[in-house]
């Protein structure tokens, strides 16, 4: 089912929950809503579910405007962060509940619940109550309850945030493959960027109630359209630095208090668009420890991450984060030389925070 949100806003008195949201979601697509706490992800989801009435704008499912429809008429399945299982019903009762309300014949109820339980691997738990289940099992029951009524659209509100890291990893894969197999349009709210990047076909990045970008994970990572996205997507985060462009002997250069680097000619347009100060961004993996590198610095902090060491390096007065091979046994105080892969540099207007190199 296609979903289209246009000019969707929700205000709670003076508080803006969501502001003028436009979004086109394809049939069968897996879309993640990514953004920091309080940016309006849940509010958007609850408007789609029919719990909140939009202040302005329309919500379209397929070719139907659903603004006026009650939740029960929207044929959606929803998985909540708290799982929201009915504590007084058994697992079977929880999963049948949507079917009971739809007045599905008893035998078919039985069959469909058993099928859903089978899919979710909880067939042996049907007689238990939610309080007698582990978090992961509750999560599966919640998913089973959302799936059993064969919804057109699945809504997830941070469904994995209460699980441990390992279980989160398996559930990610399961949810994703289940959704692909059933071909249900899914909208998945998360503030975990790894979840969004690994699961979603496209990611809607939100901040302060507004849509910042709506693009594929690759696009967001490679060509972040705003400084907010550049900083929010990617871990460890992108390094930012205030610089100015300069021309020297016909070559383009980047200059800051403590750094002077040559730039490839493709940034000429960005340099032309810039007006004085510019924010330069570079990801930790694009700065390389290189004994012949043009820049010298000193290791300030070493944070072992297991596969890599995260180094905080001081160049003049600036700090850069970068990743190093643990075999180097870097230690604070080491003198190092760096080279920057400037083909992967990002530039932003410091006032509008928009990217200068691409739109």
């Amino acid at each position, binding site marked *: 089912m296609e979903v289209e949100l246009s000019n969707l806003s929700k205000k709670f008195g003076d508080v803006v929950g969501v502001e003028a949201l436009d979004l086109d979601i394809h049939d069968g697509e897996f879309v993640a809503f990514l953004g920091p706490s309080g940016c309006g992800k849940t509010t958007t989801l609850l408007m789609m579910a029919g719990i909140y009435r939009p202040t302005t704008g329309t919500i379209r499912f397929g070719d139907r405007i659903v603004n006026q429809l009650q939740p*029960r008429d929207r044929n959606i399945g*929803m998985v909540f962060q708290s799982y*929201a299982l009915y504590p*007084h019903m058994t697992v079977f009762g929880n999963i049948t509940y949507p079917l009971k*309300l739809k007045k599905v014949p008893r035998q078919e109820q039985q069959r469909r619940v058993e099928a859903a339980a089978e899919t979710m691997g909880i067939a042996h738990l049907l007689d238990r109550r939610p309080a007698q289940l582990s978090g992961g099992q509750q999560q599966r029951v919640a998913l089973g309850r959302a799936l059993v009524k064969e919804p057109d659209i699945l809504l997830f509100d941070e469904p994995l945030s209460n699980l441990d890291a390992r279980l989160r990893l398996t559930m990610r894969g399961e949810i994703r493959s289940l959704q692909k197999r059933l071909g249900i349009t899914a909208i998945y709210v998360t503030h975990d960027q790894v979840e969004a990047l690994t699961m979603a076909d496209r990611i809607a990045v939100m901040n302060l109630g507004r849509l910042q970008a709506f693009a594929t994970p690759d696009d967001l990572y490679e060509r972040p359209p705003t400084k907010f996205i550049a900083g929010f997507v990617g871990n460890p985060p992108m390094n930012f630095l205030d610089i100015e462009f300069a021309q020297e002997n016909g070559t383009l250069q980047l200059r800051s208090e403590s750094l002077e680097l040559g730039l490839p000619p493709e940034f000429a347009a960005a340099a032309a668009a810039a007006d004085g100060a510019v924010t330069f961004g570079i990801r930790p993996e694009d700065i390389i420890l290189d004994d012949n590198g043009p820049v010298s610095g000193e290791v300030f902090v070493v944070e072992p991450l297991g596969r890599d060491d995260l180094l905080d390096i001081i160049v003049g007065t600036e700090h850069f984060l970068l990743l190093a091979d643990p075999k180097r046994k870097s230690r604070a105080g080491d003198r190092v030389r760096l080279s920057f892969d400037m083909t992967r540099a990002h530039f932003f207007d410091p006032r509008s925070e928009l990217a200068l190199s691409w739109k």
Partner: protein
Amino acid sequence: MQANLTAYGFMAPAGLLVLLFFFLPVLIVLYLSLTNLASANFTSNLAEMEFIGLRNFQTLLNDQFAKKIFFNTIFYVMSTLALFNVTAALIVSLLTAHINRRAGFVFRALWILPRITTSTVYILIWRRMMAEAPFGIINQVNTALGWPTWNYGAENPWVFVILVNGFIGISFGMIIFTSAIESIPADLMNASLVDGSTYLQRIRHVTLPLLRWPLLFVVTYQSLSLLTSFEQILLLTDGGPGLYRTEVWALTAFHRALSNYFGNTQWGYGSAFAVVLVIIGVILAVVYMRVFRFDELVAEPRIEVL
């Protein structure tokens, strides 16, 4: 040992109060119920009081009106509880939980008025309402509409006794139920709607089952407090009209022991009524604790959530 002493030390003031203002009076009443103390056979000398064993209770058993009063009491407690203290309170809570928050608050505040109005004033209003034509307000409305007038006080005293007490009783359950409804997680309520319920279905399948403990608590507490309440009935009908039409047990205890009924204040006999009430109350409390497993009710969170 030291810690125990400290604990007892902290409990002592409350314990002393209970001892002084509950156990001691009960003991005194118990003793009085075994005497013939009454204004007819007592002048000013306590020594004239006679210990007569269980004779008061024997009299009570053979009292031709005691049985009627007993069933009056059961009728009064059950109807008020079923119609108002539980059902109406639940309806008001559910209703106000589903409307605009501020409107809900105002509506609930209205229902607290009967509880906080001085009982004499409150009863005065009701007596004005139910009075005979041409004085009573309801009868004035009847007249204006061309309907027959009616002597409510004489014809339907129970209706008014129950209404008067019910209106007071609503607020207690209402407050308990409302706070319980509001503490049901929003996700759970939303999940039910998304799963396809109407608001009514949600009340039936989700809200009410989650209100099980608060419901039991209100039934327990309110039945015990109705059993011992009598001041509204005293002020409204004084147990009448006629002989004991709306007389309840607690009111009889008052009439016999503390008001000059039939020109003879029977402290001893009235105490016997009071003692029966205390015994019934204690038995009921124990039964409730067993049946409803009150200890769990108190120990667990008020509503069952994950």
